[in-house]
């Protein structure tokens, strides 16, 4: 089953040296993305999900440094690759789309021009073939009137169309893994649903694996096959979406879901998690969640919990389940 796993992030640690001190943005992030699945990396601010996404493409901005861990793509550690090798992988095998598509597309060139350029660079196709491939991609992402869009400039397109163009751009070279960082957060709800449908469709028809980074649990529930819940730089719970969202184990996951308004709880106060997300400069010792955890044990204050398997691909990092570890 090992070759089922496309991307494997293990014990990733990323630090930022700032004038105010060292920010521990990522502290032992561990998860896999399998072939042909949509994996949701979900968490609130400060959980390190965006930085992790960037790290996969070795695009962590300064002053960030990856201090520990491995990121394996097809079994090979990306962190050990040369810049030259990464350039082939970036855009070629692994592509990324961001929250703000207008910031990722060059405003000076038409959309088509940019896509064709990237196709030719990675796939070494002639102009004609590249053009055909680009148009085919535009159709595949559901862009209406692909020829017109091809000759349009990014600012002439609406947010939803821009995001589709971004996705076409990202997948035009036949990338196997798409890292999508909050791709629909800046879009209106009705457009958002279109884009999410598109991502699901791409998974089904083209076999693209998607790492979907988001803070919206509703999005995760409706699109992801498996999900990893991140808190303060590490994964606290991971597994099949239904398992994690409805048979949750970690107190944070529980608190997160309980805080979301539900019509059955209308009229009652929402169950908020006390306190707030810790500052990356001063993470609590032991389990990062323990100061806010209603079920904290004494050991939680000193010992960070390891990610253990509860069976059926359901993982949790919590001392409450130490005895249930599946061998």
């Amino acid at each position, binding site marked *: 089953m090992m070759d089922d796993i496309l991307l494997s992030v293990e014990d990733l640690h990323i630090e930022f040296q700032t004038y105010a001190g060292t920010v521990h943005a990522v502290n032992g992030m561990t998860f896999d993305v399998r072939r042909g699945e949509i994996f949701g990396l979900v968490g*609130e*601010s400060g959980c390190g999900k965006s930085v992790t996404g960037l790290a996969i493409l070795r695009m962590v901005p300064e002053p960030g440094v990856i201090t520990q861990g491995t990121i394996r793509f097809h079994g090979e550690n990306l962190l050990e690759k040369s810049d030259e090798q990464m350039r082939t992988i970036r855009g070629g095998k692994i592509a990324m789309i961001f929250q703000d598509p207008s910031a990722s597309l060059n405003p000076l060139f038409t959309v088509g021009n940019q896509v064709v350029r990237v196709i030719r660079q990675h796939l070494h196709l002639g102009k004609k073939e590249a053009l055909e491939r680009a148009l085919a991609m535009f159709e595949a992402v559901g862009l209406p009137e692909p020829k017109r869009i091809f000759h349009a400039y990014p600012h002439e397109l*609406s*947010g*939803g*169309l821009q995001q589709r163009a971004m996705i076409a751009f990202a997948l035009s070279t036949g990338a196997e893994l798409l890292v999508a960082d909050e791709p629909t957060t800046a879009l*209106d*709800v*009705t*457009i*958002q*649903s*279109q884009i*999410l*449908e598109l991502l699901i469709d791409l998974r089904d028809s083209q076999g693209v694996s998607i790492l979907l980074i988001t*803070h*919206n*649990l*509703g*999005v995760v*529930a*409706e*699109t992801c096959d498996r999900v990893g819940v991140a808190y303060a730089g590490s994964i606290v719970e991971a597994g099949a979406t239904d398992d994690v*969202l409805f048979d949750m184990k970690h107190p944070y996951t529980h*608190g*997160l*879901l309980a*805080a*979301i*308004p*539900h*019509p059955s*709880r*209308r009229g009652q*106060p*929402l*169950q*908020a*998690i006390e306190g*707030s*997300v810790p500052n990356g400069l001063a993470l609590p010792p032991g389990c990062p969640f323990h100061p806010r955890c209603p079920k904290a044990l004494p050991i939680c204050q000193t010992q960070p919990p390891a990610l253990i398997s509860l069976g059926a691909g359901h993982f949790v990092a919590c001392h409450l389940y130490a005895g249930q570890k599946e061998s």
Partner: protein
Amino acid sequence: MTTSPLVEVRGLKKYFFSRQGLISFSERKVVRALDGVDLAIQRQETLGIVGESGCGKTTLGRTILRLLTPTSGQILFDGEDITMLKGRALRTYRQHMQMVFQNPYSSFDPRATVLQSLAEPLKTHTVLRGEALVRRARELLQQTGMPGDILYRYPHEFSGGQLQRIAVARALALNPKFIVLDEPTSALDVSVQAQIINLLQELQRSLHLTYLFITHDLSVVQHISDRIAVMYLGKVVELSPTEALFDDGARHPYTQALLSAAPILDPELRRKRIILPGNVPDPASPPSGCRFHPRCPLAQDVCTRVEPELKPLQDGHWVACHLIESHQQEEF
């Protein structure tokens, strides 16, 4: 006996004219942000406003608060016409209506301490100074669950949730009756959002506040609002008590599509997704007739020619759609 509404808006229009320079004969672009809105907000209720970009909900909040001057129509606050008030007269009304903004970090002067920010409304409208002022500032912070010893800190030292509490404290400084909340939780984490929503509801009960809650988050608006108005391109297309709307009560095709599009956690609550074609049109050039007709799956000929009016259905449920009137609409 029905008491009069606290805030009433009649035929409110707000157009933005883009300047083409002093010497230009080219067509000026007119953005019809609000194009005839009628609403009444009852005392101590929470009216939720939902809609997507370009629908005018943010403009509505700001216009009611007179941060913008209406192009036409009327705004009544507590029975008084405040539509065209200016200067000192307007400033007197400012005490009664306040606003909480979406991004807590940008709603505070980064160079002002918490005390200075809280003192601003007090210094502008009251004679409180010195010790008494500081005491009142501490009181306000306590009311919103913040410790009193943060007075000399700066905004950037707080988390989003904490800062939003301070924003609420500032809004309460002058004992307002009415608060416009413009996406107050959209920039916050889910766990913090819950805290702020609880706080807002508690304060509403204890201080008898009236809220206009603007948001795009349907689960939040469902939780906190008594009634909900759905806006599209500058007009209200549906107005209904909350429970009725979410219990399969949505009648306007846009509302139905909107409710179905929101990603929902609980699979039992999910509806069949109605995917709308096209994009939200440009408020500078709205479609003829019913503004929603180009994207409406049920559009008829009359929809392309005549704009539907907001008409009552039953029990405070109003809809602006030709199909409802003629009872031709089917369930999706």
